[in-house]
């Protein structure tokens, strides 16, 4: 097998005609996952419990994946969300646990707007090499993913007080980027083990972690950016991640449906394949249509964002895509457990694993209800 080809930095003008590059990314992802990844890594009985593969992460970096949202001035390829989404979709299809969205896409999206500091350069360098991971802590309450009313504060002498919830992959992260609010918002870097930082870490259904953080006058290592641009940058990273999660779930749903269809074609009961039964045919048809709509929705959102980043219509489309993808992934995975019968309830089949990933992604970065309401609100504003 040939090695997957790395992505080269491209001029922004090639973005619009990025279908070829997107296909290149998809092909390289398929190749890498086929040779280096097995879903057994994230099963409930997998050992070790933490599946992160540092070698695989470095390969992803070398292929340029972690830098698709990094600007060219930082040696990234700046390919836009259509490409980031296409990659995320492959992570979903193959159920790959490495935190591409949380520790690849989000830090990369942030970096573009940060002023030149040692920390920014270190983050950008790590996205190119894959040597270390970074994570972003912005959310303070379950179900509230926007940056309004951020209660964490940075004192004049550079100490952080407050809390964050559901921060991804702090166990893997080299440093944690924390959003502080108030009159003068700031994005700061803290390190694990710093006095005053309390971490309550939980395993997630994809065998990664989320941590609740408490800051008791934690000294920050570096202030990356201050003022409203700190909030704006975090918002942008969250939008990018939301779109990518929609693409991830679409890929997940589609691969689950393929598994279900294969079962319906081959499994014989009452003397005929299950797939000849009209009730099952119609269920499959409904899931197929739902997945097609989910795919169209994230494509539309990526296209709008890449044409007008941050616009109300782009953000509305991202919300629609996230809400739809959550529905597609959950419905398809739940149906898979049912339609595979006894096997569907066995950890041996991938249906439960898919449902577990759907549960994580459908709630992360805002659930269906949150996004439907935000969609309606943004639509009204842009009308």
């Amino acid at each position, binding site marked *: 097998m040939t090695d997957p080809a790395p992505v080269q930095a491209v001029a922004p003008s090639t973005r619009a005609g990025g279908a070829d590059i997107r296909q290149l990314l998809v092909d390289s992802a398929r190749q890498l996952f086929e040779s280096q990844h097995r879903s057994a890594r994230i099963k409930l009985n997998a050992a070790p419990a933490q599946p992160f593969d540092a070698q695989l992460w470095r390969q992803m970096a070398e292929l340029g994946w972690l830098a698709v949202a990094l600007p060219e001035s930082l040696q990234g390829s700046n390919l836009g969300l259509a490409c980031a989404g296409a990659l995320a979709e492959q992570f979903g299809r193959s159920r790959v646990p490495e935190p591409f969205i949380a520790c690849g896409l989000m830090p990369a999206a942030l970096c573009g707007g940060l002023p030149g500091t040692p920390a920014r350069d270190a983050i950008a360098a790590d996205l190119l090499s894959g040597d270390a991971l970074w994570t972003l802590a912005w959310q303070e309450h379950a179900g509230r993913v926007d940056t309004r009313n951020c209660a964490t504060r940075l004192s004049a002498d550079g100490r952080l007080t407050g809390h964050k919830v559901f921060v991804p992959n702090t166990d893997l992260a080299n440093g944690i980027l924390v959003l502080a609010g108030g009159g003068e918002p700031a994005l700061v870097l803290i390190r694990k083990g710093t006095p005053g930082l309390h971490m309550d870490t939980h395993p997630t259904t994809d065998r990664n972690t989320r941590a609740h953080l408490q800051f008791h006058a934690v000294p920050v290592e570096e202030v990356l950016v201050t003022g409203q641009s700190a909030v704006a940058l975090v918002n942008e990273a969250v939008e990018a991640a939301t779109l990518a999660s929609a693409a991830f779930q679409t890929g997940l749903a589609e691969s689950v449906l393929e598994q279900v269809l294969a079962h*319906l074609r081959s499994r014989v009961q009452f003397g005929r394949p299950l797939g000849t039964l009209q009730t099952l*045919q119609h269920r499959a048809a409904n899931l197929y249509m739902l997945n097609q709509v989910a795919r169209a929705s994230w*494509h539309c959102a990526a296209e709008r964002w890449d044409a007008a980043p941050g616009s109300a219509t782009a953000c509305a489309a991202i919300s629609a895509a996230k809400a739809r993808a959550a529905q597609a992934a959950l419905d398809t995975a739940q149906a898979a457990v049912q339609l595979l019968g006894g096997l569907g309830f066995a950890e041996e089949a991938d249906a439960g694993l898919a449902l577990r990933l759907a549960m994580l992604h459908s709630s992360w970065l805002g659930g269906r209800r949150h996004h439907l309401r935000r969609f309606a609100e943004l639509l009204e504003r842009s009308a």
Partner: protein
Amino acid sequence: MIDWSCASDDDFRLALRNWLAQHYPIQWRLSATRPFHRLRGQQKISWLQTLQEAGWRAPAWPREHGGLGLSFSKQRIYHEELERQQVARVIDFGEQMLGPILMAFGTPQQQQSLLPRILRCEDIWCQGYSEPNAGSDLASLRTAAISDGTDFVVNGQKIWTTYAHDATHVFALVRTGRFERKQQGISFLLIDLRSAGVRVRPIMNIAGDEEYCEVFFTDVRVPQANLVGRIHEGWAIAKALLGHERLWVGSPAMSRRALALAQQVVAVSGLKSDVTVMDRLAELAADLHDYEALYEGVCREAEQHSQPGAHIVMLKILATELQQRICELVTEIAQEHAGVLGESLIGGLAVDIHWQMMMSRPISIFGGANEVQRDILAKAVLQLPAGG
């Protein structure tokens, strides 16, 4: 006549927009009481003749046959502008169905004599496919056409024939022979409804309108020259994928009308503070948004390929069921007004809740029930095995 196929998209759009604004009668626009209104009878003929005289008729027909010869993308602009101007829909079987069939399967003589008459509304066509015992299972049709050497003699019955009472002619599927496969032995025949032995009986639908009919044939003589294509091979004609025509049934336009009505009713009913209603409205708005994204993608694909793939049957299913869900919400939020037969005023807005509910029902039945479309999707796209 201006050759619009050569004009820029923007020029074409603006010219049509301006012309429609000046020439489409305001009283025929879609409204809250008739959100899915269709022109029929004399109104329809008058509007089609206005289009014909001004050079806007038959956007999909090639110029050599008197149409506008528009590309698929320009046809989309054409439909967008009709929608924007709230032009009521027109079902013109001559233009939309028979014309393309004659161009593909008719003799030069049939084309020359019939196509101009369609454009000028001298012949008004209806489609005679369904029969009492041949609905979704259309190939079981039994209306017989027996050749006696000079003519076909037609006996039998068609049903659910839309606008037969407005039509002068019917293009019908008739049985000319019995073969092993029931799809064989069906022929495509053009019949003058004014012939001796034809009787048309309108059927009232659940909205209270007489839109479709039963058509009875008793020893009706039809000239041999009225056969389209080869004898016994009419099934292929009926099933022929009429290119992009199949995409229009998936247009989200009617769902947009329905959602606009829902939004109006919410506003006049003071329901904007009702979280449950607003959540359901948001959900339906997102359903529409996502469906539009899907439709856009399929249309773009179709612009590049002459024959869309089998997966486009999903458009009809999704579009019709979305429109129905929205009309169901309208019915629910209209509260007691849902029990009113005919017009009713909600906070100054005239609505007809009964009509919009009833008119959203047949869309998932006509043109192949959605259950049949799901069967097709399962077999042709998902490659699930056929039953038996």
